[in-house]
């Protein structure tokens, strides 16, 4: 038995162990034991992923009760990369959960669901055929729904969120089922190895492609199928949000990679343009809503929709540039897609874990009621800050390297003579740039409003730092974000070889060189250069600071008056006001201003109440009519079922007669 086979089997064994521990242990022991078991399960996943990524192969076949149908686990190198990603995020989330879970989220059901969720996610990229893939997919979907429901007893919003999530995730499942059925019928087999490189011109291929892409896009949270994200992520416990947002949505993107690159390569141009438009649209839509969100976890959820949009756009560009014979840029775009996925997993898990620490310390998700948390929670502030840098794609983080790679692919994807490429590439570049700019505002807001300045509420003032297990997970996540940023070369090279792209080399100390497009980036060298130029400045700063220490605790500027109320600070709503105003047409906020005048005077106001609310336009325009139609249909269907036993007996009798008639005839 090879090490990889052992790793895969160990995951099954550890998941069983974790479920047993979760069910049998009590109180705090349960949190510790189940947490350790889940962490071991994820570590097993990460190790097997690393083995598969480095080229180890294995094919595990499991017979099922149905004759002829067997489950095949055969991770390839790309699957290995995803397994490594999911396992790493799972490890962080499990360690974090030991200190984080309390009350409803520490129940037997929740821990058991967490273990099954982890197992499902780690098996999806290991699947070697359609049946195993769909089974693992469904395990992942069902277990995550249980996690979203954790707080349902005292939070009606959690129930709502779970319904939305369950409906969306099962719609996605149905589409995948149909898509894979169509694909298997076209290709004549259910194994991925047999389906790889199916001719896109065959009948049924287009239907399969569209069904599968829509199904996977719903899981990846790509707009307009993102509606479950901003509901489910805020309501789920934070370790579950981190897992869903950093790991699970990546599997949606993995599915799109699987379909677009491996199973159905060489499709018509419109497939790739569709993906690019879907991705770029989702990126702009997601970041706009994140930019104006005031709920921290909702903000992060929309940012996930943005990042996955970028990944999907990069995959679309790869397909476009491949069909139009620009191989160098296509390879760079594909590597960019993988780097985006990996760096997103790192920074988004760090951010969600940080948001969880804030939620635990203050009970607040509303940015408008936070502030000054850097004083009480320095660890959380530092790690959240690093995560924010990653999300804003600034150096030296993984997010920056990923975005740089994508931009290099776009810059070198120039084909003036080819009309489609000539139009699509610069437009995509503009949209991605707008996304990058708005991501800056969003994350300066998220970090600055939550952690800097003065506390805006009593709860924020009384915050305390997170316990050690949570801190350890957050620090590990932040170190991951920085490591991906300083030494991206090996990761990029591994990702490139996993997806079969040549033209990525390690340059200097852990830098990336894209030989296909002739671009090089060495963040370590950039850091070194920064250190060289900053050293004299730093020395001067230190010398001067030693000579004259600063005077602290003076009064801030209040136009000559004393204005010390923390409520006078800018908050998240006011910070995003210019963005809201500029993108008024896209966001369509509802503002409510009530002015109470002093006596009869029209000029003196006693108090002014301001309320602002904005709904997702996609939701209002697309989903409300759909939900209303579904409701109406369900009402009609209910008339058939009125609870009368006589009627049900009549139904059974009629059905029996029909069956008999069919059999006889």
């Amino acid at each position: 038995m090879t090490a990889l086979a052992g790793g895969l089997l160990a995951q099954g064994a550890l998941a069983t162990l974790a479920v047993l521990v979760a069910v049998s242990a009590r109180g705090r022991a349960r949190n510790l034991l189940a947490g350790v078991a889940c962490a071991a399960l994820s570590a097993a996943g990460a190790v097997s992923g690393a083995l598969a990524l480095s080229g180890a192969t294995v094919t595990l076949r499991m017979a099922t009760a149905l004759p002829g149908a067997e489950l095949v686990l055969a991770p390839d190198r790309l699957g290995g990369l995803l397994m490594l990603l999911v396992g790493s995020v799972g490890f962080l989330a499990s360690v974090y959960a030991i200190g984080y879970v309390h009350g409803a989220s520490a129940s037997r059901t929740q821990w058991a669901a967490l273990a099954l969720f982890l197992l499902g996610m780690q098996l999806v990229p290991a699947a070697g055929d359609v049946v195993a893939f769909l089974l693992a997919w469904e395990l992942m979907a069902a277990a995550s729904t249980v996690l979203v429901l954790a707080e349902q007893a005292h939070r009606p919003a959690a129930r709502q969120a779970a319904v939305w999530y369950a409906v969306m995730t099962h719609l996605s499942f149905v589409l995948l089922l149909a898509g894979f059925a169509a694909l298997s019928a076209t290709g004549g087999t259910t194994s991925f190895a047999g389906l790889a490189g199916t001719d896109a011109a065959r009948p049924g291929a287009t239907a399969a492609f569209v069904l599968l892409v829509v199904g996977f896009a719903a899981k990846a949270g790509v707009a307009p199928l993102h509606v479950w994200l901003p509901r489910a992520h805020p309501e789920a416990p934070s370790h579950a949000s981190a897992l869903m947002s950093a790991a699970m949505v990546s599997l949606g993107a993995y599915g799109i990679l699987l379909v677009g690159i491996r199973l159905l390569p060489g499709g018509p141009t419109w497939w790739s343009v569709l993906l690019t438009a879907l991705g770029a649209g989702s990126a702009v839509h997601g970041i706009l809503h994140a930019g104006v969100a005031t709920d921290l976890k909702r903000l992060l959820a929309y940012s996930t929709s943005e990042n996955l949009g970028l990944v999907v756009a990069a995959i679309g560009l790869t397909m476009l540039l491949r069909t139009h014979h620009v191989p160098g840029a296509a390879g760079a775009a594909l590597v960019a897609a993988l780097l985006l996925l990996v760096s997103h997993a790192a920074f988004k898990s760090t951010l969600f874990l940080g948001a969880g620490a804030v939620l635990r310390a203050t009970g607040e998700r509303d940015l408008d009621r936070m502030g000054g948390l850097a004083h009480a929670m320095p660890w959380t502030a530092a790690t959240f800050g690093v995560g924010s840098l990653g999300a804003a794609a600034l150096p030296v983080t993984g997010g920056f390297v990923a975005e740089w790679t994508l931009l290099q692919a776009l810059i070198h994807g120039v084909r003036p003579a080819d009309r489609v490429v000539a139009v699509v590439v610069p437009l995509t570049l503009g949209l991605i740039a707008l996304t990058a700019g708005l991501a800056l505002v969003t994350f300066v807001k998220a970090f600055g409003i939550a952690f800097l300045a003065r506390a805006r509420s009593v709860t924020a003032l009384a915050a305390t730092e997170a316990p050690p297990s949570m801190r350890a997970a957050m620090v590990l996540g932040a170190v991951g974000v920085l490591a991906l940023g300083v030494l991206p070369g090996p990761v990029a090279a591994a990702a490139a070889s996993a997806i079969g792209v040549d033209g990525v080399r390690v340059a200097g100390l852990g830098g990336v060189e894209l030989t296909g497009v002739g671009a090089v980036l060495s963040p370590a060298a950039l850091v070194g250069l920064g250190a060289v130029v900053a050293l004299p400045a730093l020395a001067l700063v230190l010398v001067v600071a030693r000579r004259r220490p600063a005077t602290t605790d003076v009064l801030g500027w209040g136009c000559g008056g004393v204005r010390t109320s923390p409520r006078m600070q800018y908050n998240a709503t006011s910070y995003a006001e210019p963005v809201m105003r500029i993108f008024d047409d896209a966001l369509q906020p509802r503002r409510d201003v009530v002015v109470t005048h002093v006596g009869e005077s029209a000029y003196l106001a006693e108090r002014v109440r301001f309320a602002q609310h904005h709904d997702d336009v996609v939701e209002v325009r697309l989903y409300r009519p759909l939900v209303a139609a579904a409701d109406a249909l369900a009402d009609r269907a209910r008339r058939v079922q009125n609870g009368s036993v006589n009627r049900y007996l009549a139904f059974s009798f009629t059905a029996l007669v029909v069956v008999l008639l069919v059999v006889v005839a």
Partner: protein
Amino acid sequence: MSAAPLLVALVQVTVAVVLAPLVIGVTRQTRARLEGRVGPGVLQPARDLRKLIGKTPLRAAGTSPMTVVAPVVLLTSSLLLAALVPLVAALPLALVPGDLFVVVSVLLVGTVAIALLGLDGGSAFGGMGSSRHMTIAALVEPTVLVAVYALSIPVGSSALPLIVAARRDHPASIASPAGVLAVVALAIVVLAETGRLPIDNPSTHLELTMIHEAMVLETSGRDLAWVDLASWLRLSVLLGLVGNLLLPWGVAGSAAPGPVLLGALALAGKLALLAVLLATVEVAMAKLRLFRVPELLAGSFVLAFLAVTASYLVA
């Protein structure tokens, strides 16, 4: 990697640090003369800087370590910018070849640092300035990248030294429609990023109209010195870049002392010219209303996009 480009980068940083207060001095002096005042002389910013470095900073109650760190981060980002942008010589470093995306991201690190500094003060004005500043930075981003795209098409690379060198060696490309449109778009971006008129008024005393000044309202003493020096450096480096894109003559192509000295002198000349021009234009112009700024930036985006289209026509 040979040491020559690194040495040249350090020379550039030194030259930029020396020239930055002078550039500000020239703009202020020109403005004063045009408005009929005598003006304090071009050395005044340098004297201000020396004075501020010697002063004890006052920090508002409730500020976090960000107030101490952000000015230094901003300064580092500006110094790094001076090392990466081809000012004196167009010699790419082997591992960090002055790629425009890297340059922009280094610039944005500074932008973010000062925005966080503004928020950390805990006053209404700091947050206001920070919010406006970041919104403008966000809207500028598409223009920058699309303009870079247009400039990189003829060269086949987004590395600034290569772009400048290509323009120096083929002067015809400077006057091409794509080149002109892209540089005009970039010039508007430079005004926005450095807080000049018509986007922000650097000499305003009215808090409600401030952007940059509002963020540094709580900053004083040496903290303010670092912020000021960094902002001046940023203006000088970006003006120098625009200067070298428009008039790429004199930019050294080798690390020999002669060409580098010539490059430094040429840079000083271009900066003086642009500083006078900037001040003259600013005297004749009023600040735009804040919510008209997006229209200006949208206009610059259209210019950048036209530049891309024009470069297709040439290619």
